């Protein structure tokens, strides 16, 4: 009395079917539907990270404000020769001095320009440098990491030794050297930060690549006839991408801080307003001893807020991509 089965197996079906694809007509439709579903799923998971949502909202506000600065404010207020206010005026709502409060919401700097306006325009530079430098670092790091991890052998050895060299490169010294070479511009800072940050990412990506390469579906891809390019882009990269993405957001935070540091040390573009530059001038002009807290606190808090927002987003992304980190 052993169980018998019919010639064809009964139609087996998954317990949960994610979509009802009854109106699919082409491959493209399948692909887009799949992408939309994946995005919706990602957003659902991300929304559960409260801190991440806060960070995202904060970033959105800052980015919108920075982009809209030329539209909502008058750039002429940045011109030192046409400074509207008096030297180091306290904020308009601050009655306790030093000096008499003017009409500016966050007071003025040592040349009489509105600190609020400077901070808003400074956001543009800080974000631009932060994002660009990070893209540069991540781009190089991912390329090197995946190549070293995939090909192994002497390729990996050579690339990893190069990476090691870049890890120990001191950012500050390089930045000063580059500034001397290229002149103190935004490009200098971007290159300095990018070139000194990619090595850490490369090592991380390489380790993850090695883990992915050992998985059976890579072997299946090879058995199907996949070449190196297909394996690296269709299998390794998508599985390494979450790590890259989370790493990127954290890297931007680090880059913004780095930019502030380098600008503070005077290596940035003196013609452009940046938060680090503001801090540098605040320091140099004696605002500290004068007691002009608004001049120091405003760019400082701005840096803090941006870095915090990026960090919150980065941690939330890590939690989304690695369910084990999701708490609860």
């Amino acid at each position, binding site marked *: 009395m052993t169980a018998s089965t019919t010639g064809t197996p009964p139609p087996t079906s998954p317990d949960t079917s994610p979509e009802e694809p009854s109106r699919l007509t082409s491959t493209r439709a399948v692909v887009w539907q799949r992408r939309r579903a994946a995005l919706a799923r990602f957003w659902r998971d991300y929304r559960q990270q409260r801190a991440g949502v806060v960070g995202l909202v904060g970033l959105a506000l800052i980015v919108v404000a920075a982009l809209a600065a030329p539209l909502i404010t008058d750039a002429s207020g940045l011109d030192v020769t046409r400074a509207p206010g008096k030297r180091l005026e306290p904020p308009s709502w601050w009655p306790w001095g030093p000096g008499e409060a003017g009409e500016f919401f966050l007071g003025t700097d040592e040349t009489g320009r509105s600190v609020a306006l400077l901070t808003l325009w400074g956001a543009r530079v800080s974000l631009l440098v932060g994002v660009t430098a990070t893209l540069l670092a991540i781009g190089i790091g991912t390329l090197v990491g995946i190549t070293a991890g995939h090909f192994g052998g002497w390729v990996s050895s050579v690339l990893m030794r190069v990476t090691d060299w870049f890890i120990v490169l001191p950012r500050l010294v390089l930045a000063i050297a580059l500034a001397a070479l290229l002149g103190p511009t935004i490009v200098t800072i971007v290159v300095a930060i990018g070139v000194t940050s990619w090595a850490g990412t490369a090592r991380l990506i390489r380790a993850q690549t090695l883990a992915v390469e050992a998985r059976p579906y890579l072997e299946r891809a090879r058995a199907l*006839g996949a070449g190196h390019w297909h394996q690296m882009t269709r299998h390794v990269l998508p599985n390494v991408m979450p790590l890259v993405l989370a790493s990127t957001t954290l890297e931007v935070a680090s880059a913004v801080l780095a930019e502030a540091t380098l600008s503070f040390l005077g290596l940035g573009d003196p013609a452009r307003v940046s938060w680090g530059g503001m801090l540098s001038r605040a320091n140099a002009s004696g605002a500290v001893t004068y007691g002009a807290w608004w001049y120091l606190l405003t760019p400082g808090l701005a840096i803090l807020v941006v870095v915090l927002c990026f960090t919150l987003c980065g941690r939330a992304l890590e939690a989304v991509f690695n369910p084990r980190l999701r708490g609860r």
Partner: protein
Amino acid sequence: MTEQPILSARGLTVDFRLRGGRRARAVDGVDLDLAPGEVLALAGESGCGKTTLARALLGLVKPTSGTITYAGEPLASTSSGLKAYRRAVQLILQDPTGALNPRHTVYEAVAEGLRIHGITDNERDRVAEALAHCGLRPPERFFLAYPHELSGGQRQRVVIAGALVLEPKVLIADEPVASLDASVRGEILALLLRLREQFGLAALVVTHDLGLAWSIADRLAVMYLGRIVESGPTERVLTDPQHPYTRALVSVLPDSPVSEPVVLSGEPPDATRIPAGCRFHPRCPELASGGAAAAGVADACRRTPLPVLPADPHQHVVACHLRMARPTKAAEAGSVSG
């Protein structure tokens, strides 16, 4: 009468270099023929080289020496030549969960082979057809599913569909059901047999489970430490095993046709230290009990290496000094050769 084998290996050896400079000979001389539409089981315990042999036949591992021919033509050494070969000879892996990229939907997993080989016409129809042939009906319902939403059996069906979509002539299955629940295994095995009937596929099934071989294999080749030690039609090899190793393996199974269980002591030596003479002689119960000495072959067992077994598809062949000197009665009745 004899058809040309679709896949063939002659004198195949595969060495691995280990840390410390030692060399492990995973495959030590194998002649193999796979006829079109045939199911050949490659059985043995871990470390016998069956997995390496399968990978070498697929071109995933480069053999140290020997030749592999497909449909009469030797295997290409260039990657583009190998790519064409890959359409015809496909791999089914052991663990279906690991074999599917968790980020790809079922549709993408099955279509991957088509995209790699640049087959763009009717992609959707081909994928649907492959899934349907593998028992996943209606196929559209599975297009957007992810591997983690499916059961183990369904995942293995997806892997098989991914291989089937390229219209291969040979499937090489490495422990295709070992990771699945026991009650589900029969379904997947029945699927493989059905595909053989429908498409004339030949299959090389690597397994440690002799019951599986009994279930679906036409022929069985038993491997020990890199060599095939016995091969022939499945019924003959399993009901009347000639080689002492095969005999021992069959005897320890519950309800076995070999009445006396022979439990070998110790474990197979590793591939860096293959014994001299017959590689099985240190563990051979015939040598230990004096059966070999009585037949006068004990010295040969210890010193004389055995030749590689020919790839004859019809005969029951065994690589054993004792059997060559003194075949068993049953063997004499049914043309066993060494």
